[in-house]
């Protein structure tokens, strides 16, 4: 067998510029958290993702007791019971307490959303569920083999989804509880009604072929949104209960009766949350009684007192406020399977409390930094329990708690503050994946603040991501115009999830005798709807007359066209793509409608303006802004490159026929597939024999114009795709009767979706990943430097879409020192000034990543930026590891 470097000038790694000759260069900045937080972090490194049954048991038990009750109230009672019965766990040294379940990285299944996954694994009765298309993504996903993942069962621990450990004693309860939800879960009921959608069979085949990655209605129905902490901060829990009681008495018996069920549900759930907090306070007292060391004893008692206070009242100071917002963050996470629940502009929300404490000498910067480090650990400990296809294939185990910094205040002035400077510092001293940071870059953001952001980016963890505040405001203004979004409100936006531009609002927080307008999310989950369409795979279906060539499944109706012109290919692609969006929109609308009926959000609805005013939950358009369903795609750059190759090689220069190209694709250009070699690297693939049968054609495909080089031929195709995609989304309506809109993030889908896609006309080989993000060049094909890439990336208007995503890998030597920082900032600024929305960076020597792949135990703390998120290297699947290594590394900027 012959190993061939595909696309490359340098073995093993792609470089723009010269390959580094010296030893592997470590990252420039290496800071440490306080000893206390370092201990907490070491404990985290040693902890395994673990699931338990306590919450789902009590939730299900109470639900079953209330047969016949109004669904909203029944759900609230079930949540209340779940919260009340969660065992508290406070770990030594913690300053901020409470988590999802009793384990450090605890989570639990939510069979009311979907139970077939658990049953299919454990019970013969439900094995037929495995035949459903929805599990196909599980089969082509690789889960990270290290870190906290429980990849194999051992002793009394059962591995679930290759990620979570559950004690053997709880498995019968998992099965018994799941059976209670059979034919009642959102998944099962949705499946029944989805079949009424015309074209449902096509939808199933689309899922089975992994043209679409997953259904959002019962996998991750909430998330990719920004939290709003205003109500608990302003009123305290007792205050919100009083509001509910008052609204109840004003609503009962009057028209729009659903309001009373909502207010009753909020009140009920809050009682459960109060008990949950008080149980933690009791645990803190117990630990204080056992504690011999006076300082620790005092800390436990302080924690107990704080918890008792915030279980009823609004916060008195920064520590209270931080604990309260964290508690509600976890409370929302506990009501649904959620990824991407972002704290938003938390530094601006908490600033009034912090400023008062600083002015009064109640806290100093050192203490603040340690608290923020402790907060980072709590966010990092969050796990989300879902199937392997979702957790591994889409999320890479990440939970996307994105904290936004800078931007503008309500009046259009710079919003960056000193607490946010400390948030960045804590992200350096305690470099963990969560919360990831996003810099809302604006021309008015102070230079020193931006340079602090650069310093943070240079630690190599990929945060902050850099986004263009004005482009986002333009998107928000356009997208929510019909719902009354104005310039002032547009300034309150923030990133939800990895990169979802989300609507916000300014809320009048009264504290310390003043009114502070704090930003917070005011829309429900985004990135629900049509979740991840593999556009190269649709092009494959076009070339093979509607078939999934890998499995032989007929996905689309045969088009029967000879594809004699480039326009015919493009038009057929649009037809298949449109059919995909149409059927997935309808089926997802049904799923989300049923989610709102069976498992409505109560805690998150209560937090989101204006649900508490209107009495409508977020699934009934209670939020201020509701145009939140989108169409997500993966592999757009491979699509453009492939179309360019087809246009040039087949139709313009007639270098080979389409039939010949199909044969070459069928034979993977004479190479083994990635699955056959076990390597998903885009760099090193293996030829099957020494035959050069497809060598010339493969070279012509590779040599065709490639996106990322400021080449008009391919950039025009890329722009045409972008404009058409943006416009076509408007033709489909969400459950909320609002048009869909485009979202362009790959997260991790470019790996499993690439895994099932044959070789593509751009020369990419079968099974290897697609290009990451949405405007990143395909690894090794961007040969003209960063500014050429920037020109390609900005060939269209980025505000047409919820996001664009550019990942770049830069060698640490290029941005070294203060001068390197300034050069780096100028490069980012140049890109954003061209109208770009987003860029994020891995500052790393690629050879270090190769070493880490070979010796993972030596790199437990190493993190990389994937596509919108930062993750521990050892917790990434091999597909993504290979893809990150293969990305072009810039040795010059």
């Amino acid at each position, binding site marked *: 067998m012959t190993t061939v470097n595909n696309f490359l000038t340098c073995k093993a790694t792609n470089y723009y510029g010269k390959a580094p000759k010296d030893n592997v260069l470590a990252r420039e900045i290496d800071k440490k958290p306080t000893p206390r937080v370092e201990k907490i972090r070491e404990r985290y490194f040693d902890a395994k993702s673990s699931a338990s049954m306590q919450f789902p048991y009590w939730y299900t038990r109470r639900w079953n007791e209330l047969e016949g009750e109004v669904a909203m109230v029944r759900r609230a009672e079930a949540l209340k019971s779940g919260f009340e019965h969660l065992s508290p766990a406070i770990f030594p040294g913690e300053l901020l307490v409470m988590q999802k379940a009793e384990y450090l990285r605890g989570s639990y299944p939510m069979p009311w959303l979907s139970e077939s996954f658990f049953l299919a694994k454990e019970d013969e009765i439900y094995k037929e569920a495995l035949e459903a298309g929805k599990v196909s993504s599980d089969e082509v996903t690789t889960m990270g083999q290290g870190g906290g993942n429980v990849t194999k069962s051992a002793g*009394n621990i059962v591995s679930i989804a290759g990620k979570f450990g559950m004690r053997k004693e709880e498995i019968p309860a998992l099965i018994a509880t799941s059976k209670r939800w059979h034919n009642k879960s959102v998944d099962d009921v949705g499946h029944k009604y989805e079949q009424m959608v015309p074209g449902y069979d096509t939808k199933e085949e689309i899922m089975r072929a992994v043209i679409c990655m997953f259904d959002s209605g019962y996998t991750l129905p909430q998330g990719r949104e920004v939290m709003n902490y205003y109500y608990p901060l302003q009123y305290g829990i007792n205050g919100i209960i009083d509001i509910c009681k008052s609204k109840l008495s004003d609503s009962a018996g009057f028209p729009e009766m659903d309001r009373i069920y909502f207010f009753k549900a909020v009140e009920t759930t809050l009682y459960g949350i109060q008990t949950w907090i008080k149980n933690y306070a009791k645990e803190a007292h117990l630990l204080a009684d056992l504690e011999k060391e006076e300082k620790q004893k005092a800390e436990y008692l302080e924690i107990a007192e704080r918890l008792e206070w915030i279980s009823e009242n609004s916060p008195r100071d920064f520590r209270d406020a931080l604990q309260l917002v964290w508690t509600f963050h976890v409370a929302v996470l506990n009501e649904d399977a959620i990824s991407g629940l972002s704290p938003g502009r938390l530094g601006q929300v908490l600033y009034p409390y912090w400023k008062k404490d600083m002015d009064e000498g109640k806290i100093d910067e050192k203490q603040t930094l340690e608290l923020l480090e402790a907060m980072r650990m709590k966010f990092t400990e969050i796990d989300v329990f879902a199937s392997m296809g979702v957790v591994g294939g889409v999320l890479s185990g990440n939970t996307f708690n994105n904290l936004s910094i800078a931007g503008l205040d309500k009046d259009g002035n710079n919003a960056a503050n000193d607490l946010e400077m400390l948030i960045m510092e804590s992200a350096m001293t305690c470099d963990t994946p969560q919360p990831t940071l996003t810099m809302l870059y604006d021309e008015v953001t102070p230079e020193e603040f931006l340079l602090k952001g650069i310093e943070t980016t240079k630690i190599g963890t990929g945060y902050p991501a850099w986004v263009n505040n004005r482009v986002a405001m333009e998107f928000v203004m356009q997208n929510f115009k019909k719902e009354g979004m104005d310039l002032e409100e547009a300034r309150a936006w923030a990133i939800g999830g990895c990169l979802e531009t989300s609507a916000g609002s300014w809320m009048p927080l009264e504290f310390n005798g003043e009114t502070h307008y704090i930003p917070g999310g005011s829309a429900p989950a985004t990135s629900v709807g049509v979740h991840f369409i593999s556009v190269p795979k649709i092009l494959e279906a076009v070339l093979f007359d509607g078939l999934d060539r890998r499995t032989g499944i007929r996905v689309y109706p045969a088009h029967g066209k000879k594809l004699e012109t480039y326009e015919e290919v493009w038009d057929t692609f649009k037809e298949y793509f449109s059919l995909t969006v149409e059927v997935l929109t309808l089926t997802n609308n049904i799923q989300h409608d049923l989610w709102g009926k069976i498992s409505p959000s109560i805690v998150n609805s209560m937090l989101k303006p204006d649900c508490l005013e209107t009495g409508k939950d977020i699934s009934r358009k209670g939020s201020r802004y509701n145009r939140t369903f989108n169409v997500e795609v993966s592999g757009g750059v491979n699509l453009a490159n492939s179309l360019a190759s087809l246009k040039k090689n087949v139709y313009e220069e007639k270098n080979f026929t389409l039939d010949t190209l199909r044969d070459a694709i069928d034979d993977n250009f004479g190479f083994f597939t990635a699955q056959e070699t076990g390597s998903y690297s885009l760099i090193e693939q293996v030829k099957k024999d020494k035959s050069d049968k497809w060598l010339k054609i493969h070279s012509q495909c590779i040599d065709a114009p490639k996106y990322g080089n400021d080449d008009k031929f391919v950039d025009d195709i890329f722009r045409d795709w972008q404009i058409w995609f943006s416009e076509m989304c408007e033709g489909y309506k969400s459950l909320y009767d609002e048009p869909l809109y485009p979202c362009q993030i790959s997260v991790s889908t470019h790996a499993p979706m690439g895994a099932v896609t044959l070789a593509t006309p751009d020369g990419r080989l079968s099974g290897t990943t697609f290009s990451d993000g949405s405007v990143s060049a395909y690894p090794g094909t961007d040969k003209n430097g960063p500014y050429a890439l920037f020109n390609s990336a900005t060939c269209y208007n980025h505000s047409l879409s919820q996001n664009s995503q550019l990942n770049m890998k830069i060698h640490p030597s290029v941005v070294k020192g203060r001068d390197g920082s300034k050069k780096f900032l100028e490069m980012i600024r140049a890109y954003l000034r061209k109208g770009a929305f987003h860029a994020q960076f891995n500052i790393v020597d690629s050879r270090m990543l190769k070493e880490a792949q070979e010796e993972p135990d030596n790199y437990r703390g190493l993190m990389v930026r994937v596509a919108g998120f930062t993750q521990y290297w050892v917790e990434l699947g091999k597909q993504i590891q290979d893809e990150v290594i293969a990305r072009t590394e810039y040795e010059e900027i």
Partner: protein
Amino acid sequence: MRHYDCKYYLAIDAFKGICKRDKSDILADDASCEYFEKAEKCIHCAHFKLVSDEMGTCMDKHEAYPQMNANTCSDFTWN
């Protein structure tokens, strides 16, 4: 008895935890020490009846499992 069954056991994950008394790292399934005290679990509750090795009932009407923590259950009564 195992650490897992002790009221002083603080689980870090499904495999291991910390002793609340002395903060030592312990494995859930290792044998407990002389200070062992039974944790409040369904198996020790007067309302719980074993139906099989793995499952039982609570108050004769709800399915329940023996090893569930019952430290937050207001109806827990030592058997």
